[in-house]
């Protein structure tokens, strides 16, 4: 398989996911299928085709440096699970 058990565990850790033993096996299989599908595309000859970062026919979309109205503090916090009325409040994090 294209993805090892360890790969799955690493990805789960980075994504902050706790997986059961069944899920580890399932994701190892599914993620491997995804990569194997992508590997088919990699067999295409892309010599002379520049790498593309975006599929949209757009570039240089920029705005001028002007300030517009922001949200009210109350609206900004409206969806937050917890706040002190000014700031978002989360469990203590220390680096």
């Amino acid at each position, binding site marked *: 398989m294209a993805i090892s058990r360890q790969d799955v565990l690493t990805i789960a850790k*980075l994504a*902050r996911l706790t997986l059961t033993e069944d899920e580890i096996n399932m994701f190892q299989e599914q993620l491997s299928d995804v990569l194997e599908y992508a590997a088919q595309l990699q067999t295409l000859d892309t010599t002379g085709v520049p790498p593309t*970062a*975006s599929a*949209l026919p*757009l*570039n*240089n*979309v*920029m*705005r*001028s*440096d*002007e*300030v*517009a109205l*922001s*949200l*009210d*503090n109350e609206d*900004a*916090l409206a*969806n937050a699970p917890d706040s*002190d009325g*000014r*700031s*978002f*409040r*989360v*469990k*203590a*994090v*220390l*680096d």
Partner: protein
Amino acid sequence: MNYEPVIGMEVHIELDTRSKMFCSCSAQFFGIEPNTNVCPVCLGMPGALPVINKRAVEFTIMTGLALNCQIQRHSVFARKNYFYPDLPKGYQISQYELPLCLNGYVDIQTEAGPKRIRVRRAHLEEDTGKLTHVGEHSLVDLNRAGVPLLEIVTEADIHSAEEAYAYVTKLRQLVRYLGVSTGDMEKGAMRCEVNLSLKNAESGEWGTKVEVKNLNSFRAVRNAIAYEIERQTQVLNSGGTIEQVTMGWDESNGRTVLQRTKEGDTGYRYFPEPDLPPLDLEQAWIDDIAAALPELPDAKLARYTGDYGLPAADAAVLAEDRAVAEFFDAAVAAATNEVDVSPKLISNWVSGELFRRLSESGADISAVKITPEQLVSLIKLVAGNTINQSAAKKVFGVMFDSGRAPQNIVEELGLQQISSADALRPIAQQVIAEHPGPVEQFKSGKEGIINFLVGQIMRATRGKADPKLAEQTLRDLMQD
């Protein structure tokens, strides 16, 4: 065992734009009520779309050019994925494989002479929010989230704490000259990280790289590096090994402390930002930006020492700050047709009397009332013997406080120098008559006493006599 420190630096510079990097919120965050400059884009709300701030790109190109980088016409933003409460989207928009600036350099001055520090890359990204820890909780303020940030990465060309200090000082000077950032480290507008390892001087073997963070002042950069070099040397000399870790600088205790084990680049799972089309910049725009760059400190320094023959130390003082250099340049330009007013004289007045008054009054050069043209007029009055040097300093003081023209002040205070021998002779005669003792000493060969007699003339004329002419008049009279 001898070890050579090998240091690379990553410096983050907050760009001084009005709005944020990808939204129209104000980029002000210092001293602002928490979470008032926020919107769906910088809060990371679903469906909100970022749009690139053109001025931030322009500032990056300006800085890249000043760092002698190749500006990449094609560049791409990328997502750097990690979880932290100060990062609302769960990723930071940055640049990875295709940054805006590549392969530059900065020349710094060291005790051993000039040294070149290569710049690997400079790229544009967004800042994160700010966390405040309160007991069981952390409070998150996202005013700073999305403020444009320029990251400048060097090659491992730095070999001492002093060189690192010189490098960050030079970067601050450049961004201030360009007007793209305040470069104020204490306010977080410039933040440094250091990668440091010790290379075995005999075997040439490279040591393990340790990252040092939390360097919030220029002093901290110097002290933390010196400390870390010493720490690693001791560990190696006692047979220990260096772990690949991140250390934080503990300012109050003057030491580095272990922060966490490092996550490699692969942990960030970078990929091109699908919400932002790539940049394919017009060469003409880059050329326009290059043409509009101000003259940079190195060029000014070369001009001052080369064209004007100023001593290197004097030239460095003038070139240090752009506003000072431009005041000096304007004065030199105003004196183009004045043979008596040399750049050296102007330099002396700027770094002497002007700096003294500025530091006394705590004022900034940008608020100075004296115009460069007025300074040139004042120097002309001295060169033309209208006033002497001590009167000129008095006039300068009034000019500094009032912004008035020197000629008016000279007239009002009656400071015109007495510079005709005819006018000075009777005063000299009287001084000689009143001081027979010193006159006798002079005649018997005690040369130095002449200064006392000149002083008496200066006193009698309330400082208005031309001291050289006074001395000559005295000598003539005492020879008779």
